[in-house]
């Protein structure tokens, strides 16, 4: 039970880091696509979603592992 609560805490803290990272990557892409050419809204938004998703996939395990490691060291 206590272990589950710790896990949930770690998941929450991790999400607080990787979600902003992924959203930032998506927004960066959206801004670049809006400024750099005459892309259709669908291409811009689709691209931003894809970049955001891949960023999420990259950042999620890295951040979660780090947060978990830090929590373990603190214990």
């Amino acid at each position, binding site marked *: 039970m206590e272990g589950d609560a710790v896990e949930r805490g770690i998941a929450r803290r991790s999400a607080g880091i990787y979600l902003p990272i992924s959203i930032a*990557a998506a927004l960066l892409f959206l801004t670049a696509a809006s400024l750099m050419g005459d892309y259709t809204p*669908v291409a811009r938004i689709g691209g931003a979603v*894809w970049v955001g998703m891949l960023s999420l996939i990259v950042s999620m*395990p890295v951040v979660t592992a780090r947060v978990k490691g830090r929590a373990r060291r603190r214990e």
Partner: protein
Amino acid sequence: MNAPIPAENTITLPVLGMTCASCISHVEGALSELPGVSQVMVNLATGKATIDRDSSRVSIEDMRRAVSDVGYSVPTAEITLDVRGMTCASCVAHVEGALTDLEGVTAAVVNLGLGTARVTYVPGLVAVSQMKRAVREAGYEAQERSQGLDALDRERQARGEEIRRQGRNLVVAGAVGLLVMVGTFYDMLGPLRSWIPEWLSYKWVIGLLTTPIVLGPGRQFFSNSWRGLKHGVTDMNLLYATGIGAAYGIAVINTVFPRAGFGGEGATFFESAALLTAFIVLGRWLEALTRGRTSEAIRKLMKLQPKLARVLRGTSEEEIPADEVQVGDLLLIRPGESVAVDGLVEEGYSAVDESMLTGESLPLEKKAGDPVIGGTLNKTGAFKFRATRVGKETALAQIIKLVEDAQASKAPIQKLADWVAGHFILGVHVLAVLVFVFWFFFGYRLYFDPTSSFILSPYRLGEIGVFGFSLLLSVTVLVISCPCAVGLATPSAMMAGTGKAAEYGVLFKAAQAIENTSKLQTLIFDKTGTLTRGEPSVTDVLVYGETEPGSLTVEDILRFAAGAEKNSEHPLGEAIVRGARERGAEVSDPERFQSIPGHGVEAALQGHAVLLGNRRLMAQRGVDIGYLAEHAEHLEAEGKTVMFLAIDDQPAGLIAVADTLKEHSREAIQRLHQLGLEVAMITGDNARTAQAIARQVGIHRVLAEVLPQDKAEEVKKLQAQGKRVAMVGDGVNDAPALAQADVGMAIGSGTDVAKETGDVILIKDDLRDVVVALEAAKATMRKVKQNLFWAFFYNTLGIPIGAGLLYPVIRLVVSPELAGALMAVSSVSVTLNTLLLRRFKPSLRRPAPTEPAAQVLEGARWADVTAGGD
């Protein structure tokens, strides 16, 4: 009471569901995060995790949960025991408590009414016999119900289930995928179109057909990757899930909302999603089919373990499970039956085939006093033998454990490959972002050609927009980069190699030993007992001053020398004792005896101080050996070992003994020279004796007069010259040198392999097995390198092509389904390449060991028949 479990211990946990190298890091990560776990090593090929842990802080159940949290599972088995003697509810608690206290038992449910205990346990961690013993010790009787499967059957069952599961997925994905393909390419089918209904080419029909493929056979990739992501881990499933999901998602959008700007109806990738799933499932199915075969050798060894034994109790025979035989039990073996446990023959005569364990092709005669090994096959006569080693102590159990341990260990090259594969997935996703960004902002504008198409496909990219095109290349990179073959390359070859070597009686203790053996440059052989038989015999006896009146006789010399050596275990001493007895001399016990390592012995015998040893000993004790030295030189020039005898500090005579080469020493050394290896001989004997033996055997480099404790120093000196050195010795006297060498080979150890020092254990007393070890190691490492080459070849070639590097020139792109097919081919080709190791035969050919599996069938006739009636 059960023996207390030590707090710090190592356990090996079976893990199911691992498919790639990144799975290794996930499982290792999940386990090592647990409190009390100090070290974790996971082997993909064996599907096992070896864990060093503090059992007071972490339980098996904790580890099982940690493994399942990251998407894998620890298989458990169930067994029902018939428990007699229970009368009330408290008995239930006692029996349950006794069972759950056992390491490896995860649950025990006792049914008082039925008198049964249903036990859930982790196979390999606890044996059924231990459960029965625990129940007995709690005051009840337990008997195994016949439906229990042994570990081997369970492993085969689990593998069979995986093959069937992926087979079902393949049938669905393959059959429906074919319809999707036909529908997609309907316009290009020419006259065949008249046979196919047109509605099959409608996008929404293709979409409807693709959906069950993605949600059925493809679901495993999504659920597995989601489970991993939740715990901060990524694996191959994620690559597939992203690839399939993206292709399917875009296809749905383009079908339902063709004007959304994703490329419209001309850019639906339903066939990509469907065929990609089908190819990945095909790869998984083929992999499951072929992977089990790399562990065939260990399976053969496990099959040798007899199930039943016939024990003689007084005048009656009793058939009991082989794992319940106790040390000291008298057993009866009839022709065609397998020997149940290790023991010593007490009565009878027979020929026993030991080829399945030692590789020795000819059956060995067994008479009273001879040892027999459990798992071997009795050929002709019947005999009775007394059990000396049972259960985990038997030679067969030790050999299986040794081979399993070796297969569970990691070679340095494998650690590197695992590390690369483990970090690869994230790198690939980063690459996929870069590829997408490049083609979105620059590549499409600069190079896109609407007439371009996919490789091996007439399908035009046509209407695809910038987003669809960039996404396509990004997805292809994800799929084509899958390093699944990298994870399999090394462990599969190591398993096949260690197993194959074991068939010839060569046991590698760890994967590292194989890698080190394959790189050897110099081999040092111990002389006595390794190159030679180690059983010298007395050839010359010389009496000092024999012409003088009252001088000693030859018999006196032998009598004193043999008396002094009577308690010695040195081969030279034993030869003198044997020689004295053969000549009728009476050998009496010494009053005092002291061995002087590397020099000789000192004893008190019949009131005299007796000194027997080499020149150095005589010089140290101030004994002037006079003209004996001259005679000794002549004898030594002939390769004989001379020992001087002094009685009461006066020279008395000399004894010459000679050792002879083993039958195959010369042949083995010759072959090692042919293989380009430097061969040296090391001995405590004098230089002349050593040279004489070296000449006979064909060795040019001799390290003579080296004391036992200095042998390791000599090895170190060669290593300091930058050479990778193996020491071949008997494993007892040469232990320090064996430990110092890059590879220690203990030869002629017999089947008591657990006691041996050294990285490689050669069961038989045959030097040709050194060649077998070298060739098996080289063949295994060759396979490892070939496998790694092919695994990385696919990726290094596939990734740039998949990323569209060649697109500006050739106007062709790799479709996701072709990428999936390539990855499936890479895994399968690596496994098939490994299976070629099964054809390995050493160059020094002997009659091949008899096929164990065939023999077991024959030998187990009796065991199976009686088991059936159990």
